């Protein structure tokens, strides 16, 4: 059945800068914010933006991610005409077994999936950003300008701009140049890796790109420059609000800490009542807070049992903190056990790790420390 716009979430990468956290799961499946996985954000955004069909492109450790996404039930995407579809690298009839060679190649290998919905527009998303965004409004802007490609951009500080792909635009938002991590940025409009393509244009550029043996098959490096060169209509769409790329241990920790700041405008508690982030529910007991507990400036989720002191921390499902233990400025993933008297400072503690009684983790707390049983 025809759909105006289909979304494709690039979720195949390992995310090696997250170190041990992605030893066994793909980056979009990494835990975030006490209860979520990163991919909940783009998926909830899609559901809330009235997008019916969401393809999730997977390759690295795709089992957990695949079963987590399932058919999209968690985000209400499981109606008769809606679907979250896992699109793994696979063996295909004409071409045999091929892995995804780049972001553009991953979409190219799924052209027949896209064709089956005959979309006018395709929305390309990353599976590793924390933000709330109404893609429907972005689509409206794309349509108004009759654009071939609309790129969502964030106005960053001049200092930060060198870390991003920067869109140089005319006053009306027309992109005339794209620079990847420029040493001397001419603009501060950073690409968020969120693209709306008119499908006709996308399809033809993907097919051409696939034939080009010198291409890296990457949107930023190949597709966008090719379209700019051809004088296609590229526009920047400025996003305002909280947005965070959680690609490193440090940035993942920071994004968790951001949630504890009352001034943070992600509105995870949905006080504006317009944009819920959906996720998996567990069947744990309520938080059990004992007589000896002290909890401040923290976020805790169900299944936690707290006997010790928690400050400035984010605790996931089934975390147990023993008597006299101290957890400060830390992120404890599901199932972490902090034994009596142990102390943890400024750390991310990976799933099911045990912090033994008497241990002190990262008391200097200069840098974020990652504790994991994986390598």
């Amino acid at each position, binding site marked *: 059945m025809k759909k105006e716009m289909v979304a494709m979430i690039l979720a195949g990468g390992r995310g090696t800068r997250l170190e041990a956290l992605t030893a066994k799961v793909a980056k979009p499946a990494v835990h975030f914010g006490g209860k979520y996985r990163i991919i909940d954000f783009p998926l909830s955004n899609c559901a809330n933006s009235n997008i019916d069909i969401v393809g999730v492109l997977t390759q690295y450790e795709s089992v957990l991610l695949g079963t987590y996404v399932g058919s999209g039930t968690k985000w209400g995407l499981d109606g008769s005409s809606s679907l979250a579809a896992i699109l793994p690298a696979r063996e295909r009839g004409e071409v045999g077994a091929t892995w995804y060679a780049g972001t553009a190649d991953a979409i190219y290998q799924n052209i027949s999936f896209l064709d089956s919905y005959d979309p006018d527009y395709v929305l390309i998303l990353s599976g590793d950003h924390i933000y709330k965004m109404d893609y429907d409004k972005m689509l409206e802007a794309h349509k108004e300008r009759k654009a071939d490609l609309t790129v969502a951009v964030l106005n960053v500080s001049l200092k930060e701009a060198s870390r991003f792909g920067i869109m140089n635009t005319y006053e009306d938002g027309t992109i005339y140049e794209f620079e990847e991590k420029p040493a001397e940025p001419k603009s501060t409009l950073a690409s968020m890796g969120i693209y709306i393509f008119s499908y006709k244009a996308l399809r033809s550029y993907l097919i051409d790109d696939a034939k080009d043996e010198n291409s890296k098959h990457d949107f930023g490096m190949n597709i966008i420059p090719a379209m700019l060169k051809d004088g296609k209509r590229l526009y920047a769409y400025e996003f305002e609000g909280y947005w965070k790329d959680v690609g490193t241990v440090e940035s993942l920790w920071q994004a968790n800490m951001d949630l504890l700041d009352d001034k943070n405008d992600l509105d995870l508690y949905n006080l504006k009542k317009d944009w819920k982030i*959906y996720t998996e*529910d567990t069947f744990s007991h309520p938080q059990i807070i004992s007589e000896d507990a002290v909890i401040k400036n923290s976020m805790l989720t169900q299944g936690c049992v707290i006997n010790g002191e928690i400050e400035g921390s984010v605790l996931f499902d089934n975390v147990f903190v023993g008597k006299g233990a101290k957890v400060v400025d830390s992120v404890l993933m599901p199932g972490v056990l902090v034994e009596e008297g142990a102390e943890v400072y400024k750390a991310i503690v990976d799933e099911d790790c045990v912090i033994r009684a008497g241990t002190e983790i990262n008391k200097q707390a200069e840098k974020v420390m990652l504790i994991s049983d994986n390598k």
Partner: protein
Amino acid sequence: MAKTLGLVNLHSTVTYGGLTERRPVASVSYLGRYAIIDIVLSNMSNSGIDSVGILIQNNPRSLFKHIGHGNGWNFNTKKGGMSLLYNEKYANNLKYNHDINNLVENIAFIKDNMPDYVVIAPCHIVTTMNYNDVIDAHIASGADITVVYKRIDDADTAYIGSDYLKMTGNKIDEFKVNKGNKKERDISLETYVINTPVLMDLIDYATHLSSFYNLRDTLAYLADERTINAYEYKGYARCLDSMEHYMEYSLEMLDLDVSTQVFKSNWPIYTRTNDTPPTKYKEHAKVTKSFVANGAIIDGKVEGSIIGREVKIGTGATVINSIIFSNAVIDEGAYLENVIVDKKATVSRVKDLSGTKASPLYIKEGDNV
């Protein structure tokens, strides 16, 4: 495995005052995160029962909402799942609105399922019963009907109005009403295993005996004629038969020795998904000896209490020995002790609210005080 059908029997005279004015006991919030009916539904799911009928006495709407998709409780929704059984005709007619009449109206549900055995259990008696154990004992006994009981030593204050059993060995001679004049009793947990043909007979028989006879009446009547087997259950059981007991037994769970009997890793308690974020404990939070559900935002003192989903407790507010239902707001500086605050109520103008342990103060759903 023998094919078993579960029936959750919501027909009872138990009410919790204001708490059950607009909802059945089954839908009352429990331990901040559950509805009372979740406990018996989880027991059935964990016992491998695939098809469950819920005999609704009144207020079907809140149950429809709670049950929703129905796959939250891990029933296979294709093979079985949950069916809501309701007899609208008798909704406003107390004397006729009993379990036997509901079964008569919905007899097709049993016939369509054709189980070997039917397990019937109420929702207001909280247990962690494995019905497979009861069924095994039932089969071994060769009896037509098995009644589950528990030997208790506080029958002078608990289960008043419930039945206790007089037995010869495992055979029940008589059901008698517990009037509280003795501490030790073998109390019926109103949980029955019945062979399906026997149940069909029994329903038929009951309607001939009296239009006002419910299942409990009929079983009591039959003790003379039929061999009714008794099965002793030894695990956690509490009868939430009044608002006071509801409060007392809820808060008793804050004692870890009690809650570990109920929260067992191999016996999950399922409930409806609510999509609430974790709870935020802010700068001035001081929470001790409490259960807290998700989505709350707490900046005050909470002690010996149960805090529901998305409750807001303002800076410097104090909540002691109280139960706060979901989406309630306790504003800055308020002081609550021995209070039950129903859903979406706001405590803001009146800053000092106290009930007593024996008689908690109740704040109505959606009220502003």
